[in-house]
């Protein structure tokens, strides 16, 4: 008897037998399994990229300081974070999918997301209200939360990567005419390889670009190689004033 685990067992949200009798094997689309081939280098260009990388240990003062300042620039703090960015996904075959331009305001658990398509979502942390421009209707989604854009997610991941001292500092680059430090780290999930790269302004340490490059086999065993890129058009921390808090509210519809 373990009272802690017993309490968890009693809180199992699934009833025994809830899914019994729903199996339908004949509905599964099972193709003949492919022969497995060993892929020595799934992404040949990666070797060239890695050859150009200058790896600075996480403990080196310069790298540590850049990471600390980049963290501070992305961390919410007391103000309202605002980012306007353009996002897209590219596959290894050159196929491109644009996600358009989005503006995001974040303040604590509150968030507002506005796309150039007119799609708009706001959350106070306890639920989400979404405006769908196709229907012109508002919909309430209690017990849901919004997923912040990748730029904000990059901050969270960078903090995690920093704790594990797994952030590389690459050669400086220019992004939109601004000199940038380039930070790279990897996310380990036991599945595909995921490589994150964040470009931060050399003066303000604000994010300029974020890429999420992943490759490997997808859930159906097919090889994939794709890069999600978010280019930051504007980024600022607004003072927490009554006027600025109105930016977290749904616009008039």
């Amino acid at each position, binding site marked *: 008897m373990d009272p802690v685990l017993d309490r968890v067992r009693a809180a199992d949200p699934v009833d025994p037998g809830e899914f019994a009798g729903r199996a339908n094997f004949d509905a599964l689309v099972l193709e003949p*399994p492919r022969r497995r081939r060993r892929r020595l280098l799934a992404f040949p260009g990666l070797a060239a990229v890695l050859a150009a990388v200058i790896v600075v240990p996480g403990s080196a003062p310069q790298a540590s300081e850049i990471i600390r300042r980049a963290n501070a620039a992305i961390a919410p703090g007391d103000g309202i974070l605002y980012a306007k960015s353009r996002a897209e996904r590219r596959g290894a075959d050159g196929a491109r999918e644009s996600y358009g331009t989005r503006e995001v305001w974040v303040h604590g658990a509150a968030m507002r997301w506005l796309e150039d398509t007119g799609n708009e979502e706001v959350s106070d942390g306890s639920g989400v209200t979404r405006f769908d421009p196709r229907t012109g209707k508002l919909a309430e989604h209690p017990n849901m939360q919004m997923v912040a854009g990748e730029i904000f997610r990059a901050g969270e991941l960078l903090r995690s990567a920093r704790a594990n001292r797994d952030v590389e500092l690459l050669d400086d680059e220019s992004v939109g005419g601004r000199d940038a430090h380039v930070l790279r780290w990897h996310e380990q999930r036991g599945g595909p390889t995921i490589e994150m790269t964040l470009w931060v302004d050399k003066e303000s340490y604000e994010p300029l670009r974020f890429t999420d490059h992943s490759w490997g086999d997808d859930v159906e065993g097919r090889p994939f190689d794709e890069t999600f890129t978010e280019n930051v058009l504007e980024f600022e921390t607004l003072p927490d004033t009554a006027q600025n808090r109105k930016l977290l509210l749904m616009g008039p519809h």
Partner: protein
Amino acid sequence: MRDSPSRRETFRAIYEAHHAAVCAYFARRAPRDDVEDLAAETFVVAWRNMPRTVADPLPWLYAVARNVLANHRRRASRRGELAPDPATGDPAERLNGDRGLARAFARLSENDREAIRLVAWEGLSNADAARSAGCSGPAFAVRLSRARARLSRALAETPPVATFIVPERI
């Protein structure tokens, strides 16, 4: 491995024996509307990767399901879709209306929560849970022990709250 009749029949037996368990796995971790699709995706992946012999397929299926779920969440995040609220909206965290336990559970890391779920809800032994979690048996035993201790502390620190039934569907 070729698509022989015996292989297909072996897989059919595995599917019919464990389909409900895989659905329950997803129902505890994902929105209910996605459960059957995720389960079907899991079996399609399992079919492609089924080893020549599977003595005890359920932990292996849970390991496949874990990767399917990670990909599913990743795709949703990429699209900027709504995600279940880790504190209240996710079936895994709603804990059948035990609000005090839900609050304590929400204070654990995802690794800790998953270790407890695999043992308490999926009913796996430490060895089978380790296979599902993709780690060694001793590593899982340590993880579970620490997770249980953290949950116990979190429960002790969580003030009593009124328990009520949370709506079943997100």
